[in-house]
């Protein structure tokens, strides 16, 4: 894929997971968070519904992912496990539509781990770059 391709990626992030650095987006960018990943903060990753992920892709995003609390340490009990299930549902939908399921992912992350948060975003950017633009982009 061309190096000029700059994927549009949306990250739904649990408030509790990113609480300590989410207010300083400029600082986050300076630390290496990719500019082409847009953060959508949610009160809990369990709040992210299947339709949120699907609509994000429908609207032309090249990738969408969810970041939530560690599986067994979710602030709200089962929120991040629910998010994982919904991400898997959307992966199956993408597969059935002949699209790459890797365009959506769920990541569990220790609370406040900024370095890991940045790594996840970079990983997603590289993955989507390799896939190329979404077939729904611009349509």
């Amino acid at each position, binding site marked *: 894929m061309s190096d000029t391709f700059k994927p549009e990626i949306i990250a739904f992030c649990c408030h509790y997971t990113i609480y300590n650095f989410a207010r300083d987006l400029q600082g986050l960018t300076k630390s290496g968070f990719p500019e082409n990943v847009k953060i959508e903060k949610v009160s809990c990753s369990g709040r992210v*519904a*299947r*339709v949120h992920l*699907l*609509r994000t*892709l*429908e609207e032309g995003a090249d990738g969408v992912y969810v970041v939530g609390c560690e599986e067994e340490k979710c602030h709200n009990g089962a929120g991040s496990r629910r998010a994982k299930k919904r991400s898997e549902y959307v992966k199956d*939908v993408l597969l*059935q*539509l*002949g*699209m790459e399921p890797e365009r959506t992912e769920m990541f569990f992350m220790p609370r406040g781990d900024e370095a890991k948060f940045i790594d996840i975003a970079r990983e997603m950017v590289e993955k989507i770059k390799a896939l190329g633009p979404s*077939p*729904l982009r611009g*349509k």
Partner: protein
Amino acid sequence: MIVAERKPIQEILSMISGLRKILILGCKGCVTVCSAGSEREVMILATIIRMGRKKKDEPIELVERTLVRQCDPEFIDQLSDSIGQFDAVLSMACGVGVNFLADRYPKTIALPAVNTKFYGVAEEQGVWSERCAGCGDCILNLTGGLCPVARCSKGLFNGPCGGSVNGKCEINPDINCVWQLIYDRLKGLNQLDKLDEILPVKDWGVSSHGGPRKIVREDLKI
């Protein structure tokens, strides 16, 4: 409740191929309880369909609506003013809803978005299983409240077949042998004597073998 499950996406896309304006119609009855055809599932299916059609460069106009029930005239008739504008209605109700749409609107294409499976219960969140076959002549008073018509793989009426092993069905070891369950339950209720009664050959005429069924309650008719 009636339990249903959404059809595979490609089957739905194939069904609506070439159609340009569709009403996706959910139902707030059974299919909402079993998460097959609720308002939320209508939103999800509409998004999936738009994605599928965008991918093929064949945009589609979708209208989303969910009725209280699709099996009652007072609700299905709410569509009468607007239904003419659609190429088809893709119903997320059970088969009853699709049939009733077809009955009430002869000029409208009525399509099923779900497969209607059975009358069942929610065992836990996300798991449903069959309990009643709607056979038309209930004998649950004789079987401890557990139905051999719906829950015995062979529909046996007078005890288990020879294939019941450790309380499991020989057809599928994930299924409990309902006759084992019936025996255990009646024993617990001190009603094992009920099993002495030999059930006669069932009259399937009151089931679907007798053709489409109908109930008329003169006391309720206006």
